[in-house]
Structure formats: structure tokens, C-alpha cells
């Protein structure tokens, strides 16, 4: 496609030379390094406590999963617990970075007066929209690679954890999902830059979408769940006790899961969960969770996640290719 790579190259070089990009990238890097360092320290201390208290030998549970008697809460889901703040910070700052890159992708060209010139060249509009998105995507890929390598490097050096194939696979999936997450916000910014003619308005709208994703939608899920399935309060022996109805959890999970940030955290936490508690006998046991099983559990969320990205980009693409440039 003529012009696609020319556009992508220019967009990428423009983005990485921008001060706002370097500022947010730097912030993300620092936040991730600090959180993985802290997570690594906590992981190390929980592992040493677990080692001293584990007494019973492990066995083979159903499906070939390794089981052992439950001793310490700290040993459950260790990788996801240790990297939880990295996940949270990535969902916060990563989203902002993607928006900062894309909120003025098209309307800035309009404001500058260069869009008519671009479109007067013998290239399809597809090349412009794909090229600009590809340029932005390369920039977030660069950010993700640097951030992940630095963050995971710090985590491994602090914990002294050996990088097994299983851990590596989980981290690679974590990386891929993070890339898709940022790509969603990149597409949201692109879409709003096509729909809204002023960059200031599209920035504001993008920030509202981001805030909705991290705060409003999850809170909405909680509120609607409460309305439909109120938490029941009862008194036993003079003390109040609260019981949640199962519908509340389902409704909250469905609505919150619509938020890209919540969906991202849910998927990544599941992927990074290496073990979980199982109450199959009188004594709770810790069961290893294989990558396959974790992927299967979050498959609907992953499909939603990728579908959302494709849908947002498709809308942006259709609107741009049909737009009248006056």
C-alpha cells in the first residue's frame, strides 16, 4: 500500500521525539521499576516465610496439577501478587501514554492545514490511517519492551527467581495483553481525533474515556450490583454480619469487565496466577494453575479485549475514509 510505511515511519519518529512522550514514558518507567522492586521484596519475604512453615509433601491432584496442604496465604498466586502493582500502574500510566500519543493524530493535521496536502497525493486514505496507527503502535511497543525488560529484570534480580519456561510464557502473555491494552487506548484516541475537530476537545474526551475505564465503569458495576442484589445484613449473637448474594458478584463482574482497565487487570492477574486455593476436602489445598487453564478461564475476556480493539479501530477507519475534508 503506497505511502503506508512512509506515514508510519514519520509518525513513529515524530512521537518519540516529542517531549510529552518522553515525559510520560519516563514516568511509566520509574513507576514500574519502583513497583517491581517493592513487589520483588514482598515476594522474597513471603517465599522465605512459606519455606519455613511448609511441612507436608506435595502430590498429584486432578488434571495433573500439583497440590500441597495450605500453609501460608502469602504463597498463593505469588507471581500475580508480586506483580500486581506493576499491572495496576501499567493500566493507569500505559493508558495515559497511549492517549497522549493518539488524541490529536488526525485533527492536528486538520488544524495545521497539512491534511489536504497529504490527501492530494496519490495515496489511499487507508495508508494515512493505518500508517499513523502503525507509527503509534510501534511507539507503544518500544515503550512496552523497555518497560517490561527493565521491570522484570529488577524483579528477577531482587527475588533471585529462576526464569523457567512457565514463568517466561506467563510474562510474554502479560506483555502481549499489555500491548493490546495500550493499543485499545491508542485506537480510542485515534477515533476521537477523527470525530472531534479540536485537539483540546479530543484530549478532554479521551481523558474522560480513560477515567471511565479506570473508575466510573467499575464503580457503576458495584452500584448496579448493589441495587439489583443488595448486600444482606443480619445479626447473630448481637454482632452484625454481611452476606453477599451470588448475583451481585456476577453483575459487578460483567459490568466492570466492560472497562478495558478492569478487563486488562483481570486477564493479567489470571495469567500470572501460578497457584490457587481449592476447597475440595476438609483441608484447603494449594493447586498449581497451568498457563493453559489460566488462558481458558480468561478466554472470554481476551476475546472481548481483542474484539473491542478491532471494533474501535474499524469505526475510526470507516469514519476517516468517508470523511469530507473541507
Amino acid at each position: 500500500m503506497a505511502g503506508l510505511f512512509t506515514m508510519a515511519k514519520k509518525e513513529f519518529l515524530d512521537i518519540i521525539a516529542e517531549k510529552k512522550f518522553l515525559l510520560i514514558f519516563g514516568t511509566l518507567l520509574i513507576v514500574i521499576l519502583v513497583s517491581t522492586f517493592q513487589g520483588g521484596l514482598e515476594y522474597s519475604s513471603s517465599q522465605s516465610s512459606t519455606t519455613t512453615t511448609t511441612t507436608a509433601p506435595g502430590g498429584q491432584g486432578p488434571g495433573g496439577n500439583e497440590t500441597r496442604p495450605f500453609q501460608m496465604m502469602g504463597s498463593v498466586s505469588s507471581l500475580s501478587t508480586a506483580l500486581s502493582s506493576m499491572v495496576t500502574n501499567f493500566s493507569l500510566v500505559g493508558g495515559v501514554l497511549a492517549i497522549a500519543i493518539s488524541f490529536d493524530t488526525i485533527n492536528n493535521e486538520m488544524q495545521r492545514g497539512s491534511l489536504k496536502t497529504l490527501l492530494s497525493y496519490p495515496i489511499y486514505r487507508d495508508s494515512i490511517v493505518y500508517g499513523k496507527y502503525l507509527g503509534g503502535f510501534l511507539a507503544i511497543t518500544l515503550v512496552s519492551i523497555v518497560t517490561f525488560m527493565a521491570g522484570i529484570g529488577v524483579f528477577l534480580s531482587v527475588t533471585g527467581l529462576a526464569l523457567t519456561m512457565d514463568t517466561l510464557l506467563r510474562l510474554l502473555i502479560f506483555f502481549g495483553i499489555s500491548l493490546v491494552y495500550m493499543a485499545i487506548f491508542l485506537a480510542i484516541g485515534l477515533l476521537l481525533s477523527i470525530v472531534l475537530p479540536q485537539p483540546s476537545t479530543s484530549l478532554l474526551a479521551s481523558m474522560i474515556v480513560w477515567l471511565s475505564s479506570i473508575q466510573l465503569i467499575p464503580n457503576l458495576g458495584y452500584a448496579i450490583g448493589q441495587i439489583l442484589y443488595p448486600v444482606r445484613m443480619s445479626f447473630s449473637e448481637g454482632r452484625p454480619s454481611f452476606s453477599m448474594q451470588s448475583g451481585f458478584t456476577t453483575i459487578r463482574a460483567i459490568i466492570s469487565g466492560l472497562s478495558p482497565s478492569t478487563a486488562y487487570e483481570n486477564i493479567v492477574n489470571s495469567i500470572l496466577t501460578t497457584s490457587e486455593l481449592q476447597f475440595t476436602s476438609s483441608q484447603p489445598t494449594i493447586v498449581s494453575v497451568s498457563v493453559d487453564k489460566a488462558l481458558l478461564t480468561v478466554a472470554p475476556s481476551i476475546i472481548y479485549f481483542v474484539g473491542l480493539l478491532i471494533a474501535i479501530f474499524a469505526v475510526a477507519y470507516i469514519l476517516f475514509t468517508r470523511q469530507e475534508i473541507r
Partner: protein
Amino acid sequence: MTSVIELKNLTKKYGDLTAVDHVNYAVEEGEIFGLLGHNGAGKTTTILMLLGLIPPTEGTAIVNGADIKENPLQARRNVGLLPENAGFYDNLTAKQNLSFYAELADVPEKVSSDRCEKLIDMVGLGDKRTVKVGAYSRGMKQRLGIAQSLVREPKILILDEPTQGIDPEGTRDLREIIRGLSKERGMTIIFTTHVLYEVNKLCDRVAIMKNGAIAGLGTIPELRKQVNAAEGEDFEQVFLRYQGVV
């Protein structure tokens, strides 16, 4: 002579507003064609339709033998455009801007560098070639716009208000450039303007637009004759008669 642009009932409507109203004319090869009219007369809309940036509501146009509705990419393959209020990438120098457009137009890298340098010199920006465009004045950007429109060596050049923001000396230089491109390279040039003096000095033929329609079409003497202008009557008066003002 061969027609390189042919407008056939070209029409653009926005709801009840007719921006361009069943326009028919042809522009011959090597001609300097002026498009005149008040603000909102439909000049820019016509140009944007010729480039496929706006789809016509009715009718069509043939540019370089290609129908703008059926094959807009082919239609603009040999067309250079200087849009109204042309903007550039402020973080790049003049040469970097031109090189980017040359790459978009598939100009080979070996040819591109030399061509960009020559165009920068031609528009009088040689001493500012290393300065980032963000520091350019409006007039300098307009000169760079001319260079940009020529970077792919088009057969047809469309200039929308090319002298806007340029000082008198720059306007004179631009006139010479336009004349040179037409005479030496046989380039077909269409330009819109409000400056009637330029039209008088440059154009082989002129179309006067009023409320989206063609109010007058022909050479300057033909246009004068059509409204029975007195000998020595200013062309501005002639133009205003077409607009129904006098």
C-alpha cells in the same frame, strides 16, 4: 489543444445549500486558468472535488483522463496542490518537509534530495533551508507550499489563494514562477484568487463563480465584451458586474 480537466455538471450540496451548482467547463493543456469569486462562491469546493477530497453530489469531472468518482487516485496522480492556509510540520526543516512529501509521491531517493534543494532555491528559501518550519513567517510557509506542490513534478498545478500572506515582492516572484512553469514546462495551472491584478497579468482564461454557478467564462477581453465593459474600464468593475454588485 487537449482538455486535461473537464467538469461535467459538477455539483455539491450541503443540505439546502448548493455550494457548487452544475458547473461545466474544460481546462486546456498548458493553460493558466483563473477561478474568481467572492468568499463562499464555491472555488475551493470545486478544487477539493477535483482532487477527490469531497465527493460530488451530482455530475463528475475528468482529470488527466480519469474520472474523479471512479478513479480518484489516478485523477490526482499528476496533480500538485497548494491548499488555502497550507500547513507544514513545524518540527522539520524545509528540506525534511519536502523529502517527506517526495517519499509519499514515490520520488526515487537519489532524485529527491537534488529536486528538493532546487525547489527550495527556486522559491527563495535557500538561506533558510536549515531552519525549522515552525520559525517561518506566513509568507515563507506559502513559498514552501509552492515548492511542495511541485515536488512530484505534476502536469497540473492547483493553487488555492497562492499569494495569501505573501509580500508584494514575493507576489511578483510567485507570478514569475507560475509564468515560467506554464511556458517552460507546459504545466497546466489553475488558481483561485481575490487579487484581480494577478488575474489580469497571468491568466489565459478565467471562470467567475457566483453562488456556486459559473457567472462568466472566457479570456479577459471576452469577459469584458460579455458585460459590455467600456474601453479602459477597470477589470474590478467588470468582476463586480458579474457579481451583480454594480
